């Protein structure tokens, strides 16, 4: 901490304040944890099924979530890889870094788009159960947003 001024330090423990974990963060973390890339191994499928069972979905809704989250994982990985390549290129060229806020907005947009797809594709009860489960999972999330000014 020596010589640094930290302003707007915001550490959120979801166990104490789940309501302060934004949905955009909670859904992203859940989608990344439960979603699989295409052609997962049998072991990965079993793992995914075990995690999805906690959301109490019908078999049909569960299959839909598997498919939608597979698409999410592919798009998210592509987006992150492209952004990191832009950052690396800027560093090597000695130019200004790409705006990280733009990437974060795109990332959150993808999360929201995926939620919207699930709302359209799942049964009403299925979406309600999934949302209730992810809200509960906020208790197992921690978020640290910090502005460092030196």
């Amino acid at each position: 901490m020596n010589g640094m001024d930290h302003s707007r330090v915001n550490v959120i423990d979801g166990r104490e304040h789940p309501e302060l974990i934004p949905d955009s963060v909670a859904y992203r973390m859940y989608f990344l944890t439960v979603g699989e890339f295409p052609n997962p191994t049998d072991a990965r499928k079993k793992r995914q099924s075990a995690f999805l069972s906690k959301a109490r979905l019908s078999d049909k809704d569960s299959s839909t979530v598997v498919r939608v989250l597979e698409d999410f994982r592919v798009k998210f990985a592509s987006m992150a890889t492209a952004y990191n390549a832009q950052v690396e290129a800027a560093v090597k060229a000695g130019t200004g870094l790409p705006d990280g806020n733009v990437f974060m907005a795109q990332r959150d947009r993808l999360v929201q788009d995926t939620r919207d797809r699930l709302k359209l594709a799942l049964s009403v009860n299925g979406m309600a159960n999934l949302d209730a489960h992810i809200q509960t999972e906020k208790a197992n999330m921690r978020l640290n947003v910090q502005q460092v000014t030196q």
Partner: protein
Amino acid sequence: MRTLRQIHLLLFSLLIGVGVSHAQGCRTDYTFSFANYVSGSYDGTYIYTSVLTDGSGSGTPGLGCNYPNARHTAKAYNLLGSTGGWVNSNPGYMTGYLSAQNDEQIVGSPGVEYVFNWDGEVICTVFGTLFSGGSDGLVRII
């Protein structure tokens, strides 16, 4: 109705800490946002645990930061029983997106408690620890 067995994560001694060391001559205005998610489940045979640390930053480093040499690494620690350890992301630049996901599984039996220790960290080669939060606990199937 599908039989559902619940897995309970008993997390003790939660530690959330932030420590940043000083880089001399570096002027910067930098914002980062990192998150950590720990979860578990059980399918009647295996206990599954997952630890995910991800996030990114934004900002413009000033002269003296030597930011091209600064690397950030996201880390996820997942020790289930005697299985697991640390998983690190590829090192990235200060505004890059980082992600470390650590999945473990062991054969589990109802009523038995298993050690489950987890941690999530983001380390900067210039500023030190940007994010750290973890816990030692147990997992039990009920």
